């Protein structure tokens, strides 16, 4: 009998990969220094980071003057961002000229808004219909009464005293909630077979889209008063609000129309074959499919609207950015080299937080609604 020299009776223990293919060095070799060009780019990249990051860190954090610091600290030659200035003027950035003893009113509006909006955004929370009615119908009325006053013994606060983040949020929230339904109606109208409705919608959309927002606001503030009888004025704030809303609805209409066109003709015919009327066809069959397709486009418009609210400075309104600019120009007690820069940085960060939030939520919704198209 010949021996079969060796039979393995158990598996060889798994050993770690050779050092050449694993570990930090191998990773770097594969990802950073694979080719000479890669190596050069890596070196430049690292050099760039070393050049840029430490000064930025110093400006934002290391040498920054934090809340509680004084203007003397900010005036030191080496001082970075003057966050103390932001902290000291925070009230103006949020409320503008809103009277200090009435701050509880905007605060209550903010709190109610958050309280009603949060459950609506989380898909699992029940009572969506009640929630939506409260948010879209009751909340605006309550907010208006709270902010403007003049009822229930609340002091009147004219809109020219509103300002800062309050104005930015009001304009964008109202603009977003109104322009969405108006935009849908316009998009449907543009596809309508009724000539008058179709022409009216096309004319409206094309007129508004062909004109810059600045022009619309400028017209609303400078030209509109000239066409009105002497002595009657429409509130400036309302004018800005209407301008921004109409502008955004025209854009939303075109985005929604894109979604409507993406729905195969068969869907329209199938819906009609079921015996549904026009509005039911749209509400139950077409729009749910169409809107799902155009979420990125719509959110794009809303983010643009949020940032465009800054343009209301044209009509002398004071949104967040304009409030910062006002203080940059006039808060002499905080004048220092980095004061204006810090103010603008702060405004930029606030805008970023809101826009980034909207963008992330839209991605979440897209994934959730992506039911029929998962691949």
């Amino acid at each position: 009998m010949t021996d079969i020299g060796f039979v393995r009776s158990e598996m060889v223990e798994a050993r770690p990969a050779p050092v050449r293919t694993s570990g930090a060095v191998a990773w770097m070799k594969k990802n950073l220094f694979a080719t000479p060009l890669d190596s050069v780019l890596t070196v430049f990249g690292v050099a760039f980071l070393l050049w840029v990051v430490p000064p930025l860190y110093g400006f934002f954090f290391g040498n920054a003057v934090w809340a509680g610091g004084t203007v003397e600290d900010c005036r030191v030659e080496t001082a970075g961002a003057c966050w103390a200035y932001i902290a000291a003027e925070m009230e103006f950035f949020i409320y503008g000229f809103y009277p200090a003893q009435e701050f509880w009113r905007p605060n209550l509006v903010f709190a109610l808004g958050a309280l009603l909006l949060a459950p609506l955004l989380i898909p699992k929370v029940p009572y969506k219909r009640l929630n939506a009615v409260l948010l879209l119908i009751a909340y605006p009325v309550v907010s208006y009464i709270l902010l403007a006053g003049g009822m229930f013994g609340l002091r009147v606060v004219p809109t020219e005293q509103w300002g800062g983040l309050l104005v930015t949020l009001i304009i964008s929230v109202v603009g977003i909630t109104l322009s969405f339904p108006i935009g849908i109606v316009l998009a449907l109208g543009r596809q309508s077979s009724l000539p008058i409705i179709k022409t009216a919608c096309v004319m409206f959309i094309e007129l508004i889209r062909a004109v810059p927002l600045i022009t619309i606001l400028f017209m609303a503030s400078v030209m509109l008063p000239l066409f009105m009888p002497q002595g009657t004025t429409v509130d400036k704030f309302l004018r800005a609000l209407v301008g921004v809303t109409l502008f955004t609805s025209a854009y939303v209409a075109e985005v929604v129309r894109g979604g409507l066109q993406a729905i195969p003709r068969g869907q329209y015919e199938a819906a009609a074959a079921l015996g549904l009327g026009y509005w039911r066809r749209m509400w139950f069959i077409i729009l749910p499919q169409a809107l799902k397709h155009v979420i990125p486009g719509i959110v794009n418009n809303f983010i643009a609207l949020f940032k465009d609210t800054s343009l209301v400075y044209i009509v002398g309104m004071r949104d967040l950015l304009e409030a910062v600019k006002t203080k940059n120009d006039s808060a002499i007690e905080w004048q220092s080299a980095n004061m204006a820069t810090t103010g603008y940085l702060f405004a930029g960060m606030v805008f970023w937080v809101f826009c980034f939030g909207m963008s992330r939520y839209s991605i979440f919704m897209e994934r959730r609604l992506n039911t029929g198209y998962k691949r």
Partner: protein
Amino acid sequence: MQKAFVSIAVAASLGLGATAAQAAILDDVKAKGYIQCGVTGGVAGFSAPDSNNVWTGIEVDYCRAMAAAIFNDADAVRFTSLTSQERFTALSAGEVDVLSRTTTWTMSRDTQLGISFVGTMFYDGQGFMVRVEDGIESALDLSGAAICIESGTTTELNAADYFAANGMEFNTVVFVDQDEVVKAYEDGRCDVYTTDSSALAAERSKFANPDDHIILPEIISKEPLGPVVRAGDTQWFNIARWTYFALLEAEELGVSSANVDEQLGSDNPAIKRLLGVEGEFGAPLGLDNAWAYQIIKLVGNYAETYERNVGPDTPIGLERGLNALWRDGGIQYAPPIR
């Protein structure tokens, strides 16, 4: 271009408005209970929110003085921020009752826009700021120096005129925004910074070491800044004008918010007339005879508002200069109240 557009727009509004019955502004103001006052978006010392976010400044004080004269309440006034483009339309459309917004009094504005300038609350003019280390002592030494300037302003045109008139080389570094101009000057990208001298002083106060910079003595343009009202309502114009004169007259007679109550018993006939102890000077304006007393009591005289907002002890630190009373070497002058 823009100016022409605004002129046409305002002219059009006058054409349209002419048919509507012209109600007296004073009656409207009394009916609503406050004055609507058009101000800037925030120019320190002139009209700007203070640290408690209350409107302050020399132009704001003027509106408060009008409110004091009419309502005996310096807070019966609401402020609207207006941009320089919309200010005249807002005034002619009746959105504001008085415009007190760093507005330069020029002939074309006064005669073509359907508005009336009340007077000159503040005599301003364009000046130059340079670094002390450069050793420049006169604007005439500035030939060839790099000048930081804001584009599209009268500032640029004035400077070009001045350099051309004196045969000097004009070399500018132009920016769109005021903040950028200042930053560029501070970073040493140019040797000279030019704008209205009041703004120069305000910007200088922001620098880390204000003493390293000097403002040259030459003032190269006339910028009389004053309040404006709609043309056509003589009574309202008179109230606006005599509010301004009362501020000056009070300073001239030595009546201030601190001593106005004692001065009620003064034997000086001029003071008696000013404070309404003697004569009927308020009635023709449609006001109480104590109108000037109310202004002085609640707001103060011209010197007080000047010192409080832009004077040497404020961060803006402007000497009275042209804005001193005529007897102190300035050109602020009020006709007598009699």
